[in-house]
């Protein structure tokens, strides 16, 4: 309610300021024609900015410190002898009761006289402080407005000032991306370092047993946290995915860009790109209920014991997911190879496939390798398919037909629903996340660098 009143007031102030600036600058225009530097809307906007900033500052200050001020006031209203007898928790409870009394909702149990009095006083305090804040915000706003209004002259470069402010706002927006990265790195690092106070990094990075123990949180044996079983599972699934996606994706790109007539290309390309838009949870479900049982039966037919949830199941489905990623990137890159090279090969009498294999692909190789690396990074970071279909069995194994677990699966297992972050059981999620982040970051940087170099080569 209060925040709505304040917001309404600010909007009102804003409108008033804009209107003032606008009309003042309009009045400068006279028939004898002094040239006014900026159009009225810029003057309006400038006055509005001048007004809004101090008002917002005051509201912001109150939003930050208001709560502690209220609390301090409440405490001051409780008789000292009562406070002496209260511990931390009881004090908080009392403060809450007083707050509830002040808001008029009433409390459970008998109300003590001092509580009643404090509640009344708090109510008054809240009302007054609210008035004060509103008055202060409006007052400084109006003062700033008047000052800004007095600055308006024909020569005032209002437009330039407004544009400078806009520029700053734009800069702040692009800072969000940087902040995100900083946030990722900082949160992963701090929590991972906390994890390493529980578990020796060597045991983490070179341990071959993954066996966190949940039962004894914070006490005694926390279990073993060797990442190698997860790493091997991650790499195995990614390798299978690439084995499916690379041939299909690359050949699709080649066929579509070199052989298919335009009409076929126009239909097939978007259909394949549908695969890229399907949420990964859908792939996971598909792997779990369809592909897994199918592979299991197919394996039984040829005498192979393939588990329904296995590295193979997850890898194959992940490969399908990556096909459009590889095909559209490769298509893009093949199209960037200059036509002149293709013509050169045709002019020598090379057949189409000879041209593609001997000239186009070698020329596009760096770009395609970059695309593959990006695909690998995506496969390593993929979560839902492996959560559902890889079998969640964090044991170091060599066979792709058996269940595995991956880094991402373990992050989900260790962190789901638990934000306590007190023991290694949940903190390990961040150490795993850090490992994953570093791995994908390196792959991405190398891949993006290669692709960029490739593009520059043919520009």
């Amino acid at each position, binding site marked *: 309610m209060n925040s709505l009143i304040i917001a309404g007031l600010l909007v009102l102030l804003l409108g008033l300021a804009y209107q003032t600036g606008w009309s003042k600058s309009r009045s400068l225009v006279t028939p004898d024609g002094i040239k006014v530097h900026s159009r009225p809307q810029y003057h309006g906007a400038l006055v509005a900015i001048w007004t809004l900033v101090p008002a917002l500052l005051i509201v912001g200050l109150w939003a930050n410190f208001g709560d502690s001020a209220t609390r301090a006031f409440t405490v001051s209203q409780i008789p000292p002898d009562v406070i002496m007898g209260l511990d931390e928790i009881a004090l908080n409870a009392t403060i809450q009761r007083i707050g509830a009394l002040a808001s008029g909702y009433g409390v459970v149990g008998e109300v003590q006289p001092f509580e009643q009095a404090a509640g009344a006083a708090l109510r008054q305090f809240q009302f007054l402080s609210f008035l004060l804040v509103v008055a202060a915000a409006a007052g400084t706003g109006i003062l700033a407005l008047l000052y800004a209004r007095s600055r308006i002259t024909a020569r005032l470069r209002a437009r330039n000032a407004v544009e400078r402010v806009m520029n700053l706002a734009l800069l702040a927006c692009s800072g969000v991306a940087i902040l995100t990265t900083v946030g990722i790195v900082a949160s992963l690092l701090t929590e991972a370092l906390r994890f390493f106070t529980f578990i020796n990094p060597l045991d983490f990075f070179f341990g071959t047993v993954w066996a966190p123990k949940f039962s004894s949180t914070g006490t005694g044996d926390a279990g073993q946290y060797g990442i190698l079983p997860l790493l091997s599972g991650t790499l195995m699934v990614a390798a299978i995915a690439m084995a499916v996606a690379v041939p299909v994706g690359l050949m699709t790109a080649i066929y579509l860009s070199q052989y298919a007539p335009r009409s076929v290309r126009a239909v097939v390309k978007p259909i394949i790109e549908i695969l890229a838009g399907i949420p990964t949870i859908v792939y996971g479900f598909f792997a779990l209920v369809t592909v897994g049982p199918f592979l299991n039966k197919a394996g039984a037919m040829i005498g192979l014991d393939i588990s329904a949830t296995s590295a193979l199941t997850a890898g194959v489905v992940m490969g399908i997911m990556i096909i459009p990623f590889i095909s559209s990137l490769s298509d893009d890159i093949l199209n960037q190879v200059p036509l002149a090279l293709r013509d*050169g090969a045709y*002019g*020598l*009498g090379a*057949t189409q496939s000879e041209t593609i294999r001997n000239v186009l692909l*070698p*020329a596009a190789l760096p770009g395609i390798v970059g695309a593959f690396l990006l695909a690998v990074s995506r496969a390593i970071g993929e979560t839902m398919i492996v959560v559902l279909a890889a079998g969640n069995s964090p044991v170091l194994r060599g066979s792709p037909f058996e269940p595995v677990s991956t880094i991402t699966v373990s992050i989900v297992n260790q962190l789901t629903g638990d934000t306590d972050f007190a023991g290694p059981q949940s903190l390990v999620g961040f150490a795993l996340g850090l490992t994953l982040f570093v791995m994908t970051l390196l792959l991405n940087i190398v891949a993006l660098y290669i692709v960029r170099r490739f593009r520059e080569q043919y520009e």
Partner: protein
Amino acid sequence: MDMLAGKVKMTQQSVNNGMNPTDMLERPIRLHAKDVTVHYGAKQALFGISIDIPDRAVTSFIGPSGCGKSTFLRCINRMNDTIEGAKVRGLIELDGEDIYDPALDVVELRARIGMVFQKPNPFPKSIYENVAYGPKIHGLARSKSDLDEIVVSSLRKAGLFEEVKDRLNEPGTGLSGGQQQRLCIARAIAVGPEVILMDEPCSALDPIATAIIEELIDELRENFTIVIVTHSMQQAARVSQKTAFFHLGKLIEEGVTEDIFTNPVNKQTQDYIMGRIG
């Protein structure tokens, strides 16, 4: 008129490439085109082109840009096949054989009619591999030493061998523009074609590199039938024995180079030679 006189004088000097006109006309016909039309989709690019190309001589196609000279050149080794929506009608014969005959293999045809392009386009491979590529895919070399010999002799004929003999394994893309274009010529020669088509081979080169290539073309004429598209009249006058003038998709005039430049029959040809048509 003064301008025309000057031009004519210039061309008279330069149309002096060691073959007299009558000699040229007596040469056997290697390529014969009749009523060739080309459509790109709905747009017609060429209108009924008929021309004979003499054996072991240089024939040049001139004309303003967009006049269809390159389009016609690309018909001769069926490079237009690679462009979607291009339709070629009419007759083109190589030694009396219809090159658009469905029974004829376009791969074989292109082995017989080589091509050099406007921009040097060496493959991103070594110099050696660039030249060896054609003989390799066509199976022309029986052994490694056979292949070496073809590469060396092709580079020699393209006048490049002395410059690159110490770095045959370095990438072809590392050469200068003029060297790259000679590498492309060597690459075309290595297949042993009967005809070499050149699509404005010097347009991306500086004057010195251009002069070297022109000299090379003059030498190659002894062994190859050469058709060259050029936008430079001086170049046509310097290197070719026969010249054909294209304008707006039509063949306006053709004949012995000297005649075309000194005594054009058609008004449009005259305008072009005098620089009135861009």
